[in-house]
């Protein structure tokens, strides 16, 4: 196995690990929300201040979570991943 091949495998493993973790995080947050919707209806109906029920707050937070997870991935990809790809392309390892 060449050095280039080995460097690529390290990069691929790192990318896969992060992608899998972030996907799992999104699923956990979203399915957690859905399960609350199904099983904790009175809890989600509780209004924290007039007009803001816990359900509406958590729903909006699921959307915000999607943004944050994407931001984490893009920050990693734009710095670490892109730099590694450039290095492998140029130096072959």
């Amino acid at each position: 196995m060449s050095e280039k091949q080995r460097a690529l495998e390290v990069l691929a493993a790192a990318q896969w690990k992060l992608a899998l973790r972030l996907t799992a995080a999104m699923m956990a947050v979203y399915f957690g929300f859905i399960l609350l919707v199904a099983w904790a209806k009175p809890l989600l109906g509780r209004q924290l201040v007039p007009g803001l029920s816990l359900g509406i707050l958590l729903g909006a937070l699921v959307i915000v979570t999607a943004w944050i997870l994407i931001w984490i991935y893009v920050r990693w990809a734009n710095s670490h991943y892109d730099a590694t790809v450039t290095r492998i392309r140029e130096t072959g390892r």
Partner: protein
Amino acid sequence: MSSSLGSPNVAAIFFFFLFVSATLAITYWAARRTRSLEHFYAAGRSVTGLQNGLALAGDYMSAASFLGIAGLVALSGFDGLIYSIGFLVGWPVVMFLIAEPLRNLGRYTFSDVVAYRLRQTPVRIAAAIGTLAVVTFYLIAQMVGAGNLIKLLFGIPYEWAIVIVGAVMMAYVLFGGMLATTWVQIVKAVLLLGGAFMLAMMVLLRLSMNPLALFATASERFGAQVLAPGQLVADPLDALSLGIALMLGTAGLPHILMRFYTVPDAKTARSSVSYATAFIGFFYLLTFILGFGAMVIVGPDAIKAVDKGGNMAAPLLAEAVGGEGFLGFIAAVAFATILAVVAGLTLSGAAALSHDLWVNVVRAGKAPEHEQFVVARVAAVVGGLVSVALGIVFKGQNVAYMVGLAFAIAASANFPALVLSVFWRPFTTRGAQASMLVGTFSALVLIFLSPTIQISVLGHATAPFPLRNPGLVTIPLSFLVGMVVSLLTKESDAAARFDVMQHRLHLGPEADQV
């Protein structure tokens, strides 16, 4: 409250003609640039991240999201928001697992990626079946919705509405290809985001710019239960099943996946998903305000009086806060939305027919460019005519479940094969074939046996399969079948080419020769 909905509205007709003339001018401009197949399918790979982000948003935010979700929230409150959220959470999955590999490994369709290290013919056929199934159900939902909406908004007959949508959309796809379709999506996305934002602001102006005051008014007037989960999600398994189909289906929609070929490189594919998720999330947050705004300002009874399903909540709200002129603008935006989504779907269906089936199966990948170009255009005409025919055949049918079905097939047929082919070395041709076919047909059969068809459509008392959406069963099944069959049918070529694929996946197509 009286409404001018359904009678010819001067402003609506003016804005509609403005949109159609502008997009046809774009098509004329794009047609002069569409000289090669790469232009026709992939807009010459010249689209920027921001442009593609808007176009992805345009492809994704259908009239169903705009009118349907606003209506659901207006009539049932919080329950409608569950859809808003479900339609967004697939985008991170697209980002983490799909966008960059797709751009680096494929040319025109997602089958390029699945077939990359496998045998072409069997994989292409199975992938085309999955693609065409998704596109067909999505098209039926859009076309029937289009006919009904345009009839309600403009007062023109259903069949005429379908034919107008079909003709204009075919002009975009046939002459302007992906370049025109992309720009139609961009114009539509800007109009839809701008229109929804203006509408939300006009609602909030009446409530001292405070969304919580709006929700509180809804709760005072219609009871606190409008801010809490209600009957829509009665069964947790049902909710999970719909949720997983919405989440993973986004990453398997052929017309969305095709968009990643229009950008120059993987980094731009990445930035386009960021933009798309920002725009789509912002739009779905606006639906919170539009829905409750319609509930408070128009009122559920007035909305139901116009359309039982609540689809006219947003246009009625526009009329209530901005008069007939604003109603016309929002109606034209809804029309534009339908046109653009249908164009994107037709182009991806045409690509499956011509690029996957004709070029790679019938001609074994050896068709000359000019022949491919002709076949692609013929396929676009076929796709356009089929969608008009489907719209007319399904007139009056309850097709609301078909978008859910399209997502379930996309999540079961396309997503597992795509992920396994990119990330799992032992994947084989037979495994891919089995995963895609089992995914497609198990989703189709279980939908047929579900309460959605058996009870709501056929009127039977019970249904053999309990879930309304089959995703919870069919997505794991498709993964499992793909993996088991792969392990039973070793394919040394496919495993060996995994390293070549990894190389290209990370270093990009230009690194191939090195």
